[in-house]
């Protein structure tokens, strides 16, 4: 027997037997949750769109043109390219990573505590793990779009020397964002009270990551005792890959493998931890 198209089900007017519905939910539950979350985003679609376009324009003008005028009066070029080319791929990665913290802190708490959106699906055959993965998937989809918009704005500024390979910036941005997002989701799921935890993450993790992870200047100009902030942050690993894709920055192949493995490891580790916490907390 062939599997019926799940998308047509809602319109078919035919209600499948309960056992079959449950089986479906057990298989596609993660996507059901992702879809519900994405539909929820429509409520604030206008600010999201505004931000997705406004943010790259603002940052590229301010850093790529304004700050660049000071750099050209100082050292001139950075990493053998002009400052706009140097900073643009890094801005893509770090702004996308920064935005992910908005989707992986309070919305997670809201799912468990304020609106308790997680408990409905958890009472159905959809498993706690699928809810965690579904939330993750929805956020990944949002930031795929946001990365792509940033990429388009970058091209409008002429900020990539290799237009074709620079398309890889989109998956790289998403990879870096979700590496941080998965870890943050797992952490946010453990938070039970709305205290200072999320403000602290914002202030002592997200902010330093933006500032110290080699976005605005190569990590090597910082004193060694500050460089470790870059090494452990997904932003730096993503940024290094993004620079290779955007203007052919010279990075050793083995180091590129390290960057990639680091990001993937964050995603896998974060998701495994997240699924475990969701399971414990949703009592499944």
């Amino acid at each position, binding site marked *: 027997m062939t599997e019926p198209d799940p998308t047509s089900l809602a319109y078919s007017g035919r209600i499948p037997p309960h056992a079959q519905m449950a089986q479906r939910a057990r298989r596609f539950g993660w996507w059901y949750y992702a879809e519900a979350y994405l539909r929820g985003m429509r409520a*604030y679609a*206008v*600010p999201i769109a*505004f931000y997705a376009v*406004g*943010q790259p324009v*603002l*940052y590229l*003008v*301010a*850093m790529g*043109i*304004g*700050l660049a*005028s*000071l*750099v050209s*009066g*100082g*050292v001139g070029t*950075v990493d053998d390219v002009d*400052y706009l080319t140097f900073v643009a791929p890094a801005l893509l990665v770090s702004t996308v990573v920064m935005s992910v913290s908005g989707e992986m802190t309070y919305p997670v708490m809201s799912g468990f505590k304020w609106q308790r959106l997680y408990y409905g699906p958890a009472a159905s055959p959809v498993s706690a793990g699928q809810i965690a993965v579904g939330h993750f998937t929805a956020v990944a989809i949002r930031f795929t779009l946001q990365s792509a918009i940033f990429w388009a704005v970058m091209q409008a500024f002429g900020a990539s020397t290799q237009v074709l390979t620079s398309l890889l910036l989109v998956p790289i941005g998403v990879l870096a964002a979700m590496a941080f997002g998965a870890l943050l989701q797992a952490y946010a799921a453990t938070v039970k009270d709305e205290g*200072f935890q999320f*403000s*602290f993450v914002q*202030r*002592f993790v997200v*902010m*330093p990551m933006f*500032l*110290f992870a080699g976005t*605005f*200047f190569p990590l090597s*100009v*910082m*004193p060694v005792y*500050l460089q470790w902030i870059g090494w452990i942050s997904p932003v730096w690993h993503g940024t290094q890959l993004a620079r290779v894709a955007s203007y052919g920055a010279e990075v050793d192949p083995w180091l590129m493998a390290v960057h990639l493995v680091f990001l993937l490891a964050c995603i896998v580790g974060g998701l495994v931890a997240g699924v475990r916490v969701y399971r414990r907390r949703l009592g499944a």
Partner: protein
Amino acid sequence: MSTQQTPAAGEARALAARPHRIPAGLASLSSGNVRAVLERGFTVIRNQNWLILVSGFFEPVFYLLAMGVGMGMLVGEVEGPGGAPITYAAYIAPALLATSAMNGAIYDSTWNVFFKLRFAKLYQAMLQTSLGPLDVALGEILMALFRGFVYALGFLGVLAAMGLVTSWWALAMVPVAVLIAFGFAALGMAVTSYLTSFQQMDLINFLMLPMFLFSATLYPITVYPEVVQWLVMAMPLWHGVELMRQLSVGHLTGATLVHVGYFAGMTALGLWLTTVRLRALFLR
């Protein structure tokens, strides 16, 4: 026992003995008891959120470390007020102080006020007592100023420790930070009183980010075409940044007075508007 009074009793007597001197025109707006609002504010800080408050101090410090040290390596020296070359760290430090005064005041007078106004209904409760709208407005704004004062003091200490303070005028940066905070807090609260939904609150972010990026914080505004420069100069943060920068090296000109005047005007406008709005909202 008769000679020994408890402090509270003494205080109450002193209050009773001193008649409130409220100008006749303000009698319907104020009971002269701003202190009650402040007392509540400090109790909240002590019991709930002093950690968040203290951590806010680190934000400009991180910026100064990252941009001052890292970008400083790329930029070298830049032209300071009066044309003398200064290090990049010394160039951006006063701008970061002005920005942090703005951020603190805006946060306190927008999100914080919005929550109390629309969700906690705190002001409604306050105005059921003998407090008038002017008491409430002043009390909330003074709390924002207290925070600005503490941050400015801390940041000035960091600047001194980093050897970035070269003039005694730099001491005036603390009261000026309070003045900047006053302007933003007064106007911010007035604007917030018009906003009714979270989506509208996002407007504030849309204004703050470009203002921060373009107000000569990280590079001089001379890189822009003249039209854009005029736009930037109309924004309050630019005046704050210029004012701070002049004070940091002790280069005062006629423009200094203009900047101070801008904030004095902004404060007056904000206070008037806030009071009018609170009266319209609650004392119909």
